[in-house]
């Protein structure tokens, strides 16, 4: 039974997932068609798809997509660099760690959207507004992971490096960084998702150029199908971003999991 069960199990999850998507699409198709929901509020699924294909033919759509992905990538990159640098420095200096820990615990739970009034005041509906929201939200994800990673350096490995008189930079480069890398990648995955949410939020609420603003414009001009089509597409971006981040994570974690398995 187990010989047969392996392939079945392997395909079961994605197959069931796909079935769920198909069912959801069918429900969305059926509800307006059966007159259970007003078409003006929820067009049938097939019309959303048609609306989306129409969008794909428009230059404005691609511009907006580029702006969304550009803002997302830039904000994510800044948050990654800042989070890694701050994490390695704070994590490597026990005094700094002690001083900052309560501050981090205070600042971290502040939702980034609470900063919207502030950034609107300073930057209006320009890109920096979105960047600040993204960086604020994503930075903590990265920082906390990197702090875990730096703390995970094996004391025996640390002593080994010290006894061979590694320089401070040598310890960071050859000992701290390799240990922390898997945590950095996890931080990257979490931050990538958060950054996308904040990018769309900034576009939708503040009007920073991008797909979120297109959704807002479509909605306020009563283009219901277009609105749904764009929302659908943003959902697809979210899935793609998550898939990409997981692929990166899996690649980087390869030696780590094999080590864990062999030591266990």
């Amino acid at each position, binding site marked *: 039974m187990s010989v047969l069960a392996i392939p079945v199990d392997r395909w079961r999850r994605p197959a069931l997932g796909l079935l769920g998507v198909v069912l959801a699409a069918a429900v969305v198709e059926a509800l307006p068609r059966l007159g259970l929901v007003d078409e003006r509020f929820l067009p049938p699924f097939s019309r959303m798809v048609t609306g989306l294909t129409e969008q794909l033919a428009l230059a404005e759509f691609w511009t907006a997509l580029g702006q969304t992905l550009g803002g997302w990538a830039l904000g994510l990159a800044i948050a990654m660099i800042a989070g890694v640098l701050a994490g390695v420095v704070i994590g490597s200096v026990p005094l700094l760690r002690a001083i900052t820990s309560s501050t981090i615990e205070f600042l971290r739970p502040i939702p980034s959207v609470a900063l919207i009034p502030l950034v609107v005041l300073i930057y209006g509906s320009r890109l920096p507004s979105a960047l600040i929201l993204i960086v604020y939200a994503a930075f903590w994800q990265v920082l906390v992971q990197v702090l875990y990673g730096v703390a995970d350096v094996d004391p025996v*490995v640390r*002593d080994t490096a*010290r*006894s*061979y008189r590694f320089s401070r930079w040598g310890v960071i480069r050859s*000992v701290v960084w390799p240990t922390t890398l898997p945590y950095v990648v996890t931080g990257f995955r979490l931050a990538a998702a958060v950054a996308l949410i904040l990018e769309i939020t900034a576009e939708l609420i503040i009007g920073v150029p991008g797909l979120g603003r297109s959704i807002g414009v479509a909605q306020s001009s009563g283009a219901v199908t277009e609105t749904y089509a764009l929302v659908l597409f943003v959902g697809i971006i979210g899935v793609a971003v998550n898939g990409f981040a997981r692929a990166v994570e899996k690649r980087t974690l390869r030696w780590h999991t*094999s080590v864990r398995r062999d030591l266990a």
Partner: protein
Amino acid sequence: MTVILDVNGLAKTYTGHGRSVEAVRDLTFQIRKGELVCIVGPSGAGKTTLLRCISGLLDTSGGRISLDGTAVTGPPAGMAVVFQEYGRSLFPWLTVRQNIELPLKEKGLGRSERAAKIDAALEAVGLRDSADAHPWQLSGGMQQRVAIARAVAYEPSVLLMDEPFAAVDAQTRADLEDLVRRLWHQLGVTVLFVTHDIDESVYLGQRVLVLSNRPTVILEDVPVDLPDERDQLGTRSSAAFTEIRTHVYELVQKAKQGHRPGGR
């Protein structure tokens, strides 16, 4: 011969977490250049503590340690340590070759010089075929040889080894013991070898320092008057060997029962 390592009145009390443990009370001994000295003592006697103090990884609470006439305040140049937890002291993300290479890089050696030393060290410990494996792909005995190869390639003037063969089988252990003797002969390095195996200490050493139980002092400094050429069968079955090992055995038994010289 000149004294290379001078330990004078060493004391170490661990404090912290609301309790203090007096691990080492008063240790005084000297090691001459090129000697191979073994240290035996009951478990928890403070052998690891002593080695960590000598290697500059641990601050002392009293007394003085000097290497080549210079007081030890941090990890000194020209010293290599093989840790008790050898598996954890190897860098798991690096191959065997890279593990040996890293301290040489930090020492500032050029590429070709490094390659030559790595090859020689791998050859000496019989691991040429495993150069590109990762440590976690090797057996415990092989990992231990990697740690030894790394120390040997570093060309220290003093080599500290902390119960390096505690976790390997009897046959591997015998091979590694002969390896240590051979490398010591070849390199003219001073070796301080900690073990709790009495036979091993007599087989390997020119002298055996027997420690009391905690708080530690030296119970006796036993000279090992055996021929320089030693072999596992002949040496271990000789009458002289038996006599010395019986003496050391009795000392360790006394140590366990709490006997202390001069009632200190």
